[in-house]
């Protein structure tokens, strides 16, 4: 099983009824268990790259949730994945110290507060590869080879996996269409330079490969800074088996301490490649703002998929919005 499909299996276990790929027809094989999904991820993921570390850490935290909520017993698979996460750090005995990693992160799952106990557990798990201290502003300072992994794991464990979503109506071709509006925000400790690169639509497939298959610029002249144009995105092959192809009018804007892309369905145009017409409402924005101690990543999406009005669409929260919100950890 590919890593992206395995990740969807984990979300499906956590959010039954919300991640419902079968409703779209021609789905990948989702009958596989969370245990198999975790084992596949542990076997395939490459923790030498930041994207690989992100995937491993995400799967590990999702596994902790599945285990902790007694949805399924996945302890042996978690042990193996945790050991793999710890393995690259010098002097760390992964299998022996994985329980400390799990204990620390379970504390964060219970309450998104980084207490002394959490830090002590992580210090133990990462051995001498993590140095932690509380600074004069009562913020934790993480140093050492494991600082990035520890920070990433904390953020993923603290993540609220539910978006703020609401139903509504918008007018399309003079008719009211039911839509889902979802808002998701994360305050990440990832550096601004890493976060903001993924905001440009041209980089979406690279930075959010779980959802984006491709983005092609159909019109406009993208420049290093601000640009506007029409893109054709191919998304969601993971869930549908067949990607949804949509033309979007996009505006990418940078200013001091902020990068943002706003988008909307592009008007039909005889001179541009047509999309498949499945998505007739898709607008919102995606921004990264440097607030000093953290970067605020905001994702707002209003969407309607034709013919799927009765199908749960909350899978967009974990598989689209949350992955975009964690953009700083991808590459």
């Amino acid at each position, binding site marked *: 099983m590919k890593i992206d499909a395995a990740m969807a299996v984990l979300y499906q276990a956590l959010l039954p009824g919300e991640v419902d790929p079968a409703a779209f027809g021609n789905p990948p094989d989702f009958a596989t268990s969370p245990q198999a999904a975790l084992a596949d991820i542990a076997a395939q993921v490459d923790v030498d790259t930041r994207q690989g570390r992100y995937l491993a850490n995400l799967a590990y935290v999702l596994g902790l949730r599945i285990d902790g909520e007694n949805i399924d017993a996945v302890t042996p698979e978690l042990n193996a994945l945790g050991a793999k996460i710890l393995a690259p750090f010098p002097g760390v005995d992964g299998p022996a110290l994985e329980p400390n990693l799990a204990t620390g992160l379970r504390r964060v799952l219970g309450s998104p507060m980084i207490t002394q106990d959490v830090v002590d557990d992580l210090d133990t798990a990462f051995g001498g590869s993590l140095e932690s201290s509380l600074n004069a502003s009562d913020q934790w300072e993480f140093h050492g080879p494991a600082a990035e992994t520890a920070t990433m794991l904390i953020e993923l464990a603290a993540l609220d996996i539910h978006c703020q979503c609401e139903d509504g109506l918008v007018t399309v071709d003079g008719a009211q269409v039911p839509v889902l509006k979802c808002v998701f925000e994360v305050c990440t400790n990832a*550096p601004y330079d890493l976060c903001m690169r993924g905001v440009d639509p041209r980089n979406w497939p690279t930075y959010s490969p779980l959802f984006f298959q491709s983005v092609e610029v159909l019109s406009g002249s993208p420049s290093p800074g601000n640009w506007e144009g029409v893109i054709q995105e191919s998304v969601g092959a993971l869930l549908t088996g067949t990607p949804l192809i949509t033309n979007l009018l996009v505006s990418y804007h940078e200013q001091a301490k902020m990068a943002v892309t706003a988008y909307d369905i592009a008007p039909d145009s005889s001179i541009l490649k047509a999309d498949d017409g499945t998505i007739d409402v898709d607008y919102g924005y995606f921004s990264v703002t440097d607030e000093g101690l953290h970067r605020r990543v905001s994702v707002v999406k209003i969407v309607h998929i034709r013919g799927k009005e009765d199908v749960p669409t909350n899978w967009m929260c974990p598989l689209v919005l949350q992955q975009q919100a964690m953009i700083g950890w991808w590459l």
Partner: protein
Amino acid sequence: MTRDADAVAAAWGRLVGLAVDACQSHHAAHAVTDSGKKAFGKKERGGTDPDPQQMSFTVSPHQRCRPTSTGQRGVVVLNYEQAGQLQFDYSPVYLLPAGEPRTNAAQTATPSPMQLTAPGYVEVSIEPQLPRGLYVGELHDATGKGDPLLIYIDDLI
């Protein structure tokens, strides 16, 4: 696949506003040290990223964002933690539809400047007839330091 622009503009909508926390905005985001000891096997893509083992992170004990604001059309509620006079400098940047700058957006936010007597929420009036889209501006504090401001107007009924 077209949209009735008049209907969109007339539709009742909502606002999402974001003001950056001024009291946090001038702190160092993160420092870089050379405390790493062992190289990972692969170089990060592009070759310009900092070595992950040389990166340090400042991690807040509180791992959830203060929420941004939502409100009815006509009012954006700004979540600001620092008292003082704020200059609501609303840049005439209008991102949707692409290529159409909205020079009149500068007059849509009142009052400006505004006096925030205590940390908390501030309501700013926004022109109710603005079509949906993303408006970008800056908030300046009394010293002239600016922070990004995003205001998103949607037309959800």
